[in-house]
């Protein structure tokens, strides 16, 4: 053991370094938030301005664009809609796999996970052509379908692990008391698994919200999401940095908040249990 004054110095250093490193990681986001509250003319200066008169102008400008609402709504429909459908399909599947395991259960789970490892670009053209045929191109419903399929394996897997944590005796006791499947679900499974279902929903929402390959390729105007909207600033060399930042803050703010809430459960969902 080291001397107490030595370990106090160590603690000080770790506190300072810890916060500095965290701030450094967060800095690009912080800078974006600051820029969002600048007037366009203050956003584009050299040296960069740290002190400025904050204004909500850029946010007003973004909202004033008639189509902003459409982009935001499309993002919400695609992310929340796909999460809801994925949960509805995944909950019964996870229930069956977790509580009535057979010799095939593990294979089924692994196979589901493996479908998630297909690179999107490998199937870009067939999906694009299929969307063209069926008129789904530039329709947000099509994007919602893809996100549902994209998140389904993850949802089944995460729910499966949460269901497995429910003590089996609890279900047995309910069954001995003569509870049917319906009341078993209502009174035992859903209340005990609620935190797990919630974190599954949060993770699916984050992934669908931030997905940009399919939304950039398949959506254009009508079905365009916030990713498409923000990428439209890519040509605006320095002219609309404040507006771009305001739009970005609006697009990532809610999702960062959700991410903070779900941080502990993220690892379980994203590593498929490969890390304990």
């Amino acid at each position, binding site marked *: 053991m080291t001397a107490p004054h030595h370990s106090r110095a160590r603690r000080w250093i770790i506190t300072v370094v*810890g916060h500095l490193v965290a701030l450094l990681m967060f800095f690009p986001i912080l*800078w974006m938030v600051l820029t969002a509250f600048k007037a366009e003319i203050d956003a584009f200066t050299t040296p960069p301005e740290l002190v400025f008169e904050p204004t909500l102008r850029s946010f007003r400008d973004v909202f004033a664009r008639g189509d902003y609402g459409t982009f935001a709504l499309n993002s919400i429909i695609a992310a929340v809609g796909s999460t809801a459908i994925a949960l509805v399909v995944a909950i019964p*599947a996870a229930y069956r796999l977790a509580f009535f395991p057979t010799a095939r259960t593990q294979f089924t789970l692994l196979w589901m996970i493996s479908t998630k490892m297909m690179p999107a670009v*490998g199937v870009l*053209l067939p999906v694009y052509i299929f969307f063209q045929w069926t008129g789904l191109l530039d329709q947000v419903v099509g994007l919602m379908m893809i996100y549902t*399929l994209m998140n389904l394996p993850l949802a089944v897997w995460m729910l499966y692990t949460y269901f497995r944590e429910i003590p089996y005796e609890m279900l047995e006791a309910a069954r001995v008391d003569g509870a049917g499947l319906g009341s078993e679900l209502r009174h035992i499974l859903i209340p005990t698994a609620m935190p797990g279902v919630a974190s599954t929903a949060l993770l699916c929402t984050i992934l669908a919200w931030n997905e940009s390959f399919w939304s950039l390729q398949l959506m254009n105007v009508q079905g365009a999401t916030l990713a498409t909207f923000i990428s439209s600033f890519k040509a605006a060399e320095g002219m609309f940095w404040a507006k771009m930042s305001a739009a970005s803050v609006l697009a*990532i703010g809610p999702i960062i908040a959700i991410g903070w809430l779900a941080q502990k459960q993220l690892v379980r969902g994203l590593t498929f249990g490969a890390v304990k």
Partner: protein
Amino acid sequence: MTPVGSSRPSWWLLTGPSVILLLIWMIGPLAGALYFSFVRKNLMNPRLSGFVWFDNYINLLLDPVFWTSILNTLVLVGSVLAITVVAGILLALLMSEEFPGRSFARLLAISPFFVMPVVAALVWKNMLMHPVYGILSWVQRSLGLPVTDWFQDYPMTAIILIISWEWTPFAMLVFLTSLQSMPEEQREAARLDGAGPLQMFYRIILPHLGQAIAAVLMIECIFFLSIYAEIFTTTSGGPGTATTNLVYVIYKRGFNEWNYGSASAGGIYAVILANIVAFFLIRLIARNMKNQETWK
């Protein structure tokens, strides 16, 4: 463990829908991609058609741009993997120490992972890496250093930095989880043996993190093989072909040159590449699942 007094609920009713949906999602598009990869289909020249066997695959192999893109993909994936794993371990070690305000510092540090790739790319390209108005150029000027025009002179490095920033928090989060499951007695025993911090790291911590590192490498690899948005919003694959990865070549073949056959063959190459990694990842997951079963 068999349920008492109740029959199993129907597999077809409960698990069936998920399995059938995923089966369609897996087979349908892949069959389509295989079909297009064996025919000549080019919207710029619609009269050409017919079954061409492996021509699309061979033509890609003979195309220098394809090889550049493979090389770029390897450089991109390899660099980001190395950076995120090393930085992730260091950050996880730092954030697993007890210090006042630690949970707040953790929240700040994981935030980049939740930033939409398009936003991350634009913020870095414009507000941080812009040669005149960017923060980095201002820092360089203040220190009396020459200013870097990132996307002109080091486009690949710039993209590597952006993606590393997005993914380091993920690695950190996984390693933090893994560190938490480390038995304290193990560290204590090593400390009693007189192990210094470095020895402790190499003898105790690194071996414990081994499996987590393998998992991070493979999961990230699968995501990094599909990097698109960051390139699309910053360099569009340029200058020249400096930042054109496999995904970007396929996208350009399909939607700039309208050569569906060639794009699909490229897509199948991408599927093969991802499946090599996926094979090992699935094996790791399967092993863990089995361990868990016996442990329960």
